[in-house]
């Protein structure tokens, strides 16, 4: 059995009242394993921060139960939960020094003086801030404030560390550095990290598992690879990376419990064997999703999965995106890696064929 630190069971959070009722979180259930780097990913307003605040205890759920190590903590105030938060704005106490900020939680737990000093020194070393320990928090840079916020939240050695978009205020370079740093801290401390972000790239590079959220629901939970390559719903596919969506006819269906079937593109005779989701079994049409880098362009149109004319080329350094107007009027994007040799380089207005392998075709639930 998998060892869970946090169990969220049927939790919801509503704000306001009818008719202005806002369902920030609606009947969410998810288990978070011990020592994993778990990310809540979604657009702003999807409920990810609300879920984080419910786990921290800053707000109480309208219904549902939250368990920490199998103990019900739903009604416990934040100061009785072994859960610490790194705030988006860092929330460093401006009237205290760096070291005083880090020792705050330990003092509140009434730890003995020598233990506090020892832990503070450890934490300062962990985040490389020994030099600046007597500075006020407004006298250090944004990246340094970030480190202090981390050290402060880690110092009491909580069971779970909650991180609310902690990197969003940093510039790109610093953010990449902190991503590596965070991953290192998580491995070194062995604490469960719950990380909230709207940045899909950040989520994919750092997480052990990701929960994609939208409109108060968790749509899919899985490893970065699963989320990227095997999204179950259009929203997940659309939110993470670039995607093409094409409507297809379901032509062949296996009977019974088997999920295999086949699909056919419009104006094409060729059929492709694919997995058909259970809820699509009796439908005639389905939506297929294709990553731009999983399709290939060619000057010949014969035998192509789809055909169209090149409308635009966008150069991205490593890749080039080709925007193609399909014959039925919809748009399709193909990404090809750039090589020094040059290779196939069509011009705007060229008639092209798009080739897709059958294993790159995913039929979505909706």
């Amino acid at each position, binding site marked *: 059995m998998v060892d869970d630190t946090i169990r969220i069971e049927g939790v919801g959070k509503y704000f306001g009242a009818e008719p202005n009722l806002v369902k920030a979180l609606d009947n969410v259930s998810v288990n978070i394993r011990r020592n994993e780097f778990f990310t809540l990913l979604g657009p702003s307003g999807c409920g990810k921060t609300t879920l984080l605040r419910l786990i921290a205890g800053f707000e109480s759920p309208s219904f549902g139960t939250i368990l920490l190590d199998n103990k019900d903590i739903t009604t416990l105030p934040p100061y009785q939960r072994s859960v*610490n938060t790194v705030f988006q704005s860092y*929330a460093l106490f401006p009237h205290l020094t760096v070291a005083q900020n880090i020792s*705050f939680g330990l003092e509140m737990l009434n730890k003995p003086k020598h233990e506090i000093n020892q832990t503070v020194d450890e934490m300062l070393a962990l985040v490389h801030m020994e030099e600046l320990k007597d500075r006020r928090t407004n006298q250090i840079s944004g990246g340094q404030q970030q480190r202090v916020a981390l050290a402060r939240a880690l110092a009491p050695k909580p069971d779970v560390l909650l991180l609310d978009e902690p990197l969003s205020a940093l510039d790109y370079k610093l953010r990449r550095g902190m991503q590596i740093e965070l991953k290192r801290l998580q491995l070194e401390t062995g604490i469960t990290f719950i990380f909230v972000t709207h940045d899909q790239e950040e989520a994919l590079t750092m997480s052990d598992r990701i929960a994609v959220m939208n409109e108060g629901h968790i749509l899919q939970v899985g490893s970065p690879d699963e989320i990227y390559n095997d999204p179950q719903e259009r929203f997940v596919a659309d939110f993470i990376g670039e995607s093409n969506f094409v409507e297809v006819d379901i032509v062949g269906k296996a009977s019974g419990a088997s999920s295999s079937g086949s699909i056919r593109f419009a104006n094409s005779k060729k059929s492709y064997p694919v997995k058909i989701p259970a809820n699509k079994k009796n439908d005639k049409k389905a939506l297929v999703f294709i990553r731009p880098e999983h399709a290939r362009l060619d000057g010949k149109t014969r035998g192509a999965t789809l055909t169209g004319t090149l409308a635009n080329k966008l150069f991205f350094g490593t890749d080039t995106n080709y925007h193609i107007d399909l014959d039925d009027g919809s748009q399709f994007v193909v990404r090809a890696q750039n090589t020094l040799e040059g290779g196939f380089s069509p011009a705007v207005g060229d008639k092209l064929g798009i080739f897709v392998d059958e294993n790159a075709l995913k039929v979505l639930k909706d």
Partner: protein
Amino acid sequence: MAKQMTGGLIRKKPFSITRQHGFTTIALICFFVLYAPILTLVFYSFNAGNNLMLWEGFSFHWYVKAYENELVQEAAIRSLIIAVSASLISTLVATMAALGTTRTAKFKGQSMIFLMINQPLMVPEIVTAVALLIFFAIIKTFTGYYGLGYLIAAHSAFCVPFAYLPIKARLDGMDLSLETAAGDLYATPFRVFRRVTLPLLFPGIMAGAMLAFVISLDDVIITEFVKTAGQDTLPTYMLGQLRRVITPEINAISTVLLGISLLVVTLFFLVSRKRF
């Protein structure tokens, strides 16, 4: 290059986006008009002669005279007692009220509390003064108490909004996540208040107390109506002197009061700008 800058080019004054014709002139006149009378008053307080218009040389004569005047001494002490008590009381209750009305979801009766607290700013002072005269006259006949308590109560009350405003402003500007963070780091609500809220709020409380002090020290109308005979404060003493021949003694007292106000207001400016 240098030639271009100094040389024969006749350049028009560069176009300024913010300029409006005559505004600077009016503004400078305004500042002059604001300060000229006060400075004249201060200037004549150092006049050696007993005359307000003829300058007879520099001297501290009128300051000494005012200092030796028993009535002035008593009024000054009374003014200080009232101003200190009123600023302490009003700051205490205003701090509590600010904590109760700021950074909270709308609750029943909130706008009523706002209205009550800001009432002294809306009702003309003369109306409040008359109301207190009547009300305290009733209480005086019932209790037989004629002490300074009435003045202190009245001053405390009209100082509340002045103490309240900077405290509320400070609270409004305070990052709510700081207290959330303290709670997250195992501080109980009381310790959150003691260790985070209060230290952060302190400059606002100081600013509120200073404003209340100045407002109380300067009050004329309410004091004039509420005081029992022989309870003059410095401002009402000065008002009473109007019926007599005005000597530079008044200027000397005024200058001292101005000095106190200036000092407190400067401190207020420094404190309320404090950002840790």
